[in-house]
């Protein structure tokens, strides 16, 4: 069952849904990355909640003039307008009043959503309203997806994401350093508007499948997960698109295998699993790798400092340092250094002296811009034999001067 869903052989409709959700995942993954890089991830929450009054108003308006209130394009158009209005209010509140962005986002999303709910109660009171099925937009539904819907998602998703991919250089520049971008003639405001407009479009397109609450998840989770794997923005965007697409693809496939597995939540949970894997296992930024390198670093610091104390005949104060040295057999239980400890301590002190001599020389000549801590690595691994020899000559000259 799962296999046939994955291999798109579960029938016309299921295939359509799978393709649509995969494309949606890619589109949200890409546009969400730009929001995330701009530290603006939760604005998607405001966008999605602010669609509701537009949805209701569009339905009322279309029914009022005698059209079918359920016309998808009309409903999505209405949603887009009210979401755009919500976004403008968020921007206005943040720039023109003293409210911070989180308060602006929160107030817009709650008030717009509440007003949308009021409109929904109006609609339910209408004779035509009972079958409106607008509630499906809250949690999403793929059951009634038509070929036209899939094409709509495909076309709009392709247009919007290709806009972002085309303009990615200026947008990334602004996210990295908006002041510098301004000096190059790039307006941070304009690129922000572009990103928001695309996020808005993707939200509105995806609402039908994922629902307006869960579309936020698609815009946030894949980018956050992708961030763990790379420091390069292009790579992050690519990985985020892959994660998003994969979540959409796997999510719809799994949801097709049994009843009671709603598509939207399953897609979200798939992307959460991808997040969890990235969070834990990604090299360098992942939690396990970071914890391990921190642990190694901490041990090295304590070892080095402890050994230097031994070499200089000073007491070791920190219990942790003592523990680490003792476990490795460099000191005895009473704190006295062992033979091996003394030998390594002398070596460590020499390393420390060589490094600080080198650093001072480099600093004085201005060849070392960044303050770097070298003492924790052996100098032999970084400098050539000749360099070390010249350092040693310098050290002994200094020693003589002092005597």
């Amino acid at each position, binding site marked *: 069952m799962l296999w046939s869903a994955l291999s798109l052989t579960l029938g016309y409709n299921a295939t359509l849904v799978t393709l649509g959700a995969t494309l949606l995942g890619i589109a949200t993954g890409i546009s969400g990355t730009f929001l*995330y890089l701009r*530290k*603006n*991830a*939760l604005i*998607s*929450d405001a966008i999605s909640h602010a669609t509701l009054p537009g949805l209701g108003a569009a339905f009322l308006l279309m029914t009022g003039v005698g059209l079918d209130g359920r016309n998808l394009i009309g409903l999505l158009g209405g949603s887009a307008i009210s979401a755009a209005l919500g976004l403008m209010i968020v921007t206005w*509140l943040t720039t*023109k*009043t*003293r*409210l*911070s962005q*989180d*308060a602006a*986002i*929160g*107030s817009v*999303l*709650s*008030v*717009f*959503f*509440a*007003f*949308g*709910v*009021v409109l*929904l*109660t*109006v609609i339910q*009171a209408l004779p035509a309203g009972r079958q409106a099925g607008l*509630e499906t937009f*809250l*949690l999403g539904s793929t059951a009634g997806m038509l070929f036209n819907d899939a094409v709509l998602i495909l076309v709009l998703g392709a247009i919007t994401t290709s806009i972002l991919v085309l303009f990615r250089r200026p947008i990334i520049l602004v996210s990295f350093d908006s002041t510098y971008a301004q000096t190059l003639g790039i307006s941070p405001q304009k690129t922000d508007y572009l990103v928001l407009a695309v996020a808005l479009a993707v939200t509105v397109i995806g609402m039908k499948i994922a629902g307006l*609450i*869960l579309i*936020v*998840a698609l*815009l*946030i*989770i894949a*980018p*956050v997960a992708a*961030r*763990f794997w790379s420091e390069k923005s292009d790579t992050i965007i690519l990985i985020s698109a892959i994660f998003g697409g994969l979540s959409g693809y796997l999510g719809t496939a799994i949801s097709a295998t049994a009843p*009671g*597995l*709603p598509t*939207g*939540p*399953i897609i*979200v*949970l798939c992307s*959460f699993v991808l*997040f969890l894997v990235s*969070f834990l296992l990604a090299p360098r*930024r992942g*939690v396990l790798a*970071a914890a391990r390198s921190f642990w190694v670093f901490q041990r090295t610091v304590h070892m080095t400092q402890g050994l230097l104390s031994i070499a200089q005949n000073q007491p070791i104060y920190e219990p942790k340092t003592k523990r680490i040295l003792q476990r490795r057999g460099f000191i005895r239980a009473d704190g006295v250094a062992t033979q091996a400890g003394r030998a390594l301590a002398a070596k460590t002190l020499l390393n420390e002296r060589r490094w600080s001599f080198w650093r001072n020389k480099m600093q004085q000549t201005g060849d070392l811009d960044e303050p770097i801590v070298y003492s924790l690595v052996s100098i032999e691994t970084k400098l050539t034999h000749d360099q070390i020899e010249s350092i040693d000559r310098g050290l002994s000259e200094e020693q003589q001067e002092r005597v």
Partner: protein
Amino acid sequence: MGSDFVALSLPPLLIGLCASMACALPGNFLILRKQALIGDAISHVVLPGIVVAFLFTGQVSTWPMMIGAAGAAILAVLLIELIRRVGRIESGAAMGVIFTSMFAAGVLLLEQSDTSQVHLDVEHALFGNLESLIWLDAEGWASLFQIKALAGLPVELLRMATVLLAVSAFVYIFWRPLALICFDEPYARTRGIAATALGFALVTLTAIAAVAAFDAVGSIIVIAMIICPPATARLMVNSLRSQVIYSQVLAFMATVLGYMFAGYVPLWLGFSNTLSAAGMIASMSGVFLACAALFGPHRRRNI
């Protein structure tokens, strides 16, 4: 405005008032700490909390669900903090990852479990059922003084009032340290204030207020009331004390006016249906905020 009002409108109104004010009070400190959206996160994770509680107990009863919801809220707060610190993710994004995932899990669990016979659905959690909290024993204003009739008041009222009292007591007792951690958390730490614990207590209490409120009035009011009245007050006055007082007054007014607009105005205008009271109350708080943002004496940044 006689016995009908006392029986049908007074209890929901009072419950709404307690809920709004209990949410607005901690909201003052949350918006100053730039944590306004924690209310949004909390109100989303209430759903998985109640579903899990339902799956455990097999019935729709108040206390297990409240405990489940509060547990989910606290779990969400802890997880957000965990992935924010450990994974070095910006707090908005951390929030977004956790609350949407937990909400999705809630919807999935709901679909998986057999809840068809019970009134447990997403809309209920969102919209509440303020209008149904009526006082059947009331026969008029006089009932307010009859112990026997009072015993028939909706339990939600007592619960919400207790929560309001608890939140007020917390804010009163911890006023100074709360103000200090909102203004300058590192400094507060150097003065020996357990800033992390106090911040967590603030969020936990907000979660409890939110959970108590959502059952009666739905989560829409919760998010709106945590943010809108304090934000409105912030644009109108310039001292923490007056901001807190104003936020309470605004929450009060939004509830009364919103309730009226939802329950009475449509009828006066000749419509046969009332509107969602929760939605209307929240919308009203938004109207206040809009007015303050346009005309509030302290709407602009000082610096």
